[in-house]
């Protein structure tokens, strides 16, 4: 499915355009000596009734119980499910189970927040974020320009999306934006929501700061949305 977004220019006019993730594919692949690629398979190693806890008969065995069970395990190979062990499988579903590995039908969701030392700060109701780039949302032209040489070493520009036109009118629209940014040799912060919020690409997704970079060459343009969620900061 093509994804469209609406984007504003410096005159606060918006247009609907599309975008595509830019990633460099690997240039090397791994294969056998004869050049043939191996086949990836998922295989079953164990199942619910054959976990150590189930074989011992306790949900939380003590170390002594584990130790005394070891001898039995070596002699009897009781941990192997001869029906399923080694079976190739394709797709599985994911379900929540309790400690006894029984399916759970009603769940409550919370979110644990940890500080930079890994200590629990709080437990709260998860904050579900709704996408603010799709539907009627418009990516706002904040007018906040940041010169390239001021930004490149401040935030980690991890992901890139190339913005693309969908017709002649949007070609002109994006060319003009690209030229503005090239002339200023700057990024511009793109805002979600009312204009100052980070961008959320999917419902339930995570927020990113968006930085728009533009270039023009002859009768062509290159407009790239860079995303960041980290700054260049030291930890020692």
């Amino acid at each position, binding site marked *: 499915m093509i994804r469209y977004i609406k984007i504003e220019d410096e005159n606060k006019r918006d247009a609907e355009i599309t975008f595509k993730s830019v990633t460099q594919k690997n240039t090397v692949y791994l294969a056998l000596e004869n*050049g043939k690629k191996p086949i990836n398979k998922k295989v079953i190693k164990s199942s*619910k009734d054959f976990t150590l806890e189930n074989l011992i008969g306790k949900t939380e065995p003590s170390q002594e119980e584990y130790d005394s069970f070891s001898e039995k395990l070596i002699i009897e190979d009781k941990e192997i499910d001869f029906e399923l062990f080694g079976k190739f499988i394709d797709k599985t579903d994911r*379900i*929540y189970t309790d400690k006894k*590995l029984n399916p759970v039908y*009603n769940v409550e969701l919370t979110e644990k927040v940890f500080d930079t030392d890994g200590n629990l700060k709080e437990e709260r109701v998860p904050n579900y974020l709704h996408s603010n780039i799709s539907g009627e949302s418009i990516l706002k032209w904040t007018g906040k320009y940041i010169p390239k040489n001021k930004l*490149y070493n401040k935030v980690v520009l991890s992901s*890139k999306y*190339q913005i693309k036109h969908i017709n002649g009118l949007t070609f002109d629209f994006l060319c003009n934006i690209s030229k503005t940014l090239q002339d200023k040799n700057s990024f511009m912060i793109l805002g979600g929501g009312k204009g100052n919020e980070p961008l959320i690409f999917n419902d339930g997704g995570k927020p990113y700061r968006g930085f728009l970079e533009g270039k023009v060459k002859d009768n062509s*343009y290159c407009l790239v949305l860079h995303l960041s969620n980290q700054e260049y900061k030291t930890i020692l």
Partner: protein
Amino acid sequence: MGRKVSFKIDGSSLESEIVKVDRRKLYGTSEKIVYDTNKEECVLSDLYEGSIILPRGSVSQLQIDENGNSVSRSELIGFNLQGEKVEKVPSIFSIENNCKKVEIDDFISSSIKSIYQIVIDEDQIESWKKYFTNDEVYLFEFNYREDYEGDDAFLISNEEGYFISVGKSNKFEFLELSNVSIEDTDEEIEDDLDFSMF
């Protein structure tokens, strides 16, 4: 003390330890927890064929050859896209890493996946400073461990310190009027990063 990495910049040799900058160390992290109605924490399991519960860790990935024999990773070798065998790229710890000066635009266009802080000994700080006076960016090939393909790594600096930014360089297409984008795609938006800085 950790292992040191050697760099060659403008003909001079420099060295330092490196430390991975984990986002959790900068901003902390959060984790979603699921409880059942008895307030017991739940775990995610696989359900196979609608009835067989496979606890976490009971499904494994395996590689096999065309005859169904298991293949270990050590048996695999690297080939380029032309089908030619390639040599392994050494680990950054085992060689002097030749750093080439590049433009800021080359760095900006790269997709970055990990950051390392360069931890420089006191007596070497001045030597490093003279190569980073005017927004210099240096590029070298990065492999933490020996492998068949290295990443693109950029040496940069700011007021906080010096960093290695590891990722892949991208080549962007300049679009002309005729390059109207109407192709259909099932592409998923990348969304695997936590974000607590905002």
